[in-house]
């Protein structure tokens, strides 16, 4: 019982996060409702987690912000995974000059430290959820490209691939049938960590004011709004921070577990 509880526990925050994101329409009105008599109300009482500096319910704002973080994380990781895998497959399988050119491009993107390029892109393109997804994907795809390329380089030496080539199978079919199915495991593990990284990155960009714009709630912008009232109402900063931490921690734990599980299978 204890063991299986521990195993499934990280799924709970993720499930809640996804449910909150999918049902965020319910919370949208309450998240934006300004109640002057509720300004900086402490947790308990009228609203469970208290209210912010405009008297808006923090619980409903968390709920509404879950959609932003969920949509951005899913959007960025899918887009990056798709582009990165395609580039990695092409570079690794073809080798030669396409490999050289593509990897030089990857190197350039890797030369920007961490979140810096996303900050610059989002800052220049202007705020908004679309630009946020684009900026983070431009930074995100390179990791998957490198990983996929490395995998393809080793997989294409395997005997079943040589056999398929000897039988005259076209390159795209070899890639699709004999390489891609063996490639997904490490990519899925990487994508799980990628989701966690994107949740932090989205919140970070929103904290800097480069994400969605007010009155739309994002966990990152909630932290920024709360920072000025910390001494009176620490819950304004506490609540969104705990939400981010729980989601990221759970995703990292799931990623670790997936990696162990897939390692065992290989």
């Amino acid at each position, binding site marked *: 019982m204890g063991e299986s509880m521990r195993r499934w526990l990280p799924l709970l925050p993720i499930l809640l996060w996804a449910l909150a994101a999918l049902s965020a329409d319910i919370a949208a009105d309450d998240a934006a409702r300004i109640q002057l008599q509720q300004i900086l109300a402490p947790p308990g009482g009228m609203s469970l987690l208290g209210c912010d500096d405009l008297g808006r319910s923090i619980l409903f704002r968390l709920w509404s912000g879950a959609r932003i973080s969920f949509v951005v994380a899913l959007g960025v990781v899918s887009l990056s995974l798709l582009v990165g895998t395609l580039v990695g497959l092409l570079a690794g399988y073809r080798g030669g000059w396409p490999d050289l050119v593509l990897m030089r491009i990857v190197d*350039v993107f890797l030369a920007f*430290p961490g979140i810096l390029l996303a900050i610059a*892109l989002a800052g220049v393109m202007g705020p908004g959820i679309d630009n946020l997804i684009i900026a983070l994907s431009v930074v995100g795809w390179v990791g998957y490209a490198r990983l996929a390329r490395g995998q393809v380089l080793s997989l294409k030496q395997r005997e079943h691939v040589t056999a398929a080539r000897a039988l005259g199978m076209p390159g795209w079919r070899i890639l699709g049938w004999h390489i891609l199915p063996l490639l997904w495991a490490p990519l899925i593990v990487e994508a799980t960590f990628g989701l966690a990284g994107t949740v932090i990155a989205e*919140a970070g960009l929103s904290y800097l004011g480069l994400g969605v714009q007010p009155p739309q709630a994002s966990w990152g912008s909630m932290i920024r709004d709360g920072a000025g009232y910390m*001494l009176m109402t620490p819950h304004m900063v506490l609540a969104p921070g705990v939400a981010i931490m729980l989601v990221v921690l759970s995703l990292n734990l799931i990623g670790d577990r997936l990696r162990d599980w897939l390692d065992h299978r290989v």
Partner: protein
Amino acid sequence: MGLFLLSRLTSALFATLGVVLLVFFLIHLVPGDPVDVMLGESAQPADRTALRASLGLDQPLAQQLGGYFSGLLRLDLGLSLHKRQPVSQLLAERIPATLELASAALIVALLLALPLGILAALKRGQGWDWGAMGFSMLGAAIPNFWLGPMLILLFSLWLGWTPVSGRDGVTSLILPAITLGTSLAAILARMVRSSLLEVLGEDFVRTARAKGLSEWRVVSHHALGNAWLPVLTLIGLQLGALLGGAVVTEVVFDWPGIGSLLIEAIQQRDYPVVQGCVLLISLTYVSVNTLTDLAYAWVDPRIRLDG
């Protein structure tokens, strides 16, 4: 060694050129006309023409690019639109603060990660191990723009030990350094643990134990010396995250470094300054990475011979 040096330097050169190109094109990503965005639509035509000329946007693209490169070679990054000062001068004023923050964060990360990782490896499966790895999981999940405010609340507002923000003496450096260093410490502690565990399983460690050496001597003289290379590699790789995280941390603590300059410039739509900040941080990262690679090759002949 000559071949390795050449290949590392060429790829560094390519990366540098790529970074400069991307940063140059950044201003062309501004939706619509950058001059409109910077001055607003109601600006006088004369002002618009002047700004367009000063940004070089009235020239053909190839000529703009040429001008940008030749400016770079003279360390001329253009003029700030708001402060009317050379961008290079603004950057130079901010460099010491960022360097100070990044090095302090690195020291904090090492001070936390080394003892925790070593203790976790030596007491594998025991309370210390669980504690250290719990810290590692938490540290990687707590964003610095949340840890920062929480530390401010605890140590500055409640206890009154440190200033809330700004750069004024050593006490003002403590909280930003912990904020920035914690996530690196989390990743490093894990790496120190697994790297040391691997080495502790090797034959030469068994031999050292069989000779009757004390556990302390086995670890300090035989195991640690062989465990540090993967840890150093990770530090090199994580330096990017450290520099990127410094931008956010500087904003949290109002730390007057390159990162807060970048965010100010973004808010003021001062694009030449944005370009300058991104360029400086990225090129620093490329050079440090290249130097680290060369240092490894010098330390470990296997790397340079494999090329």
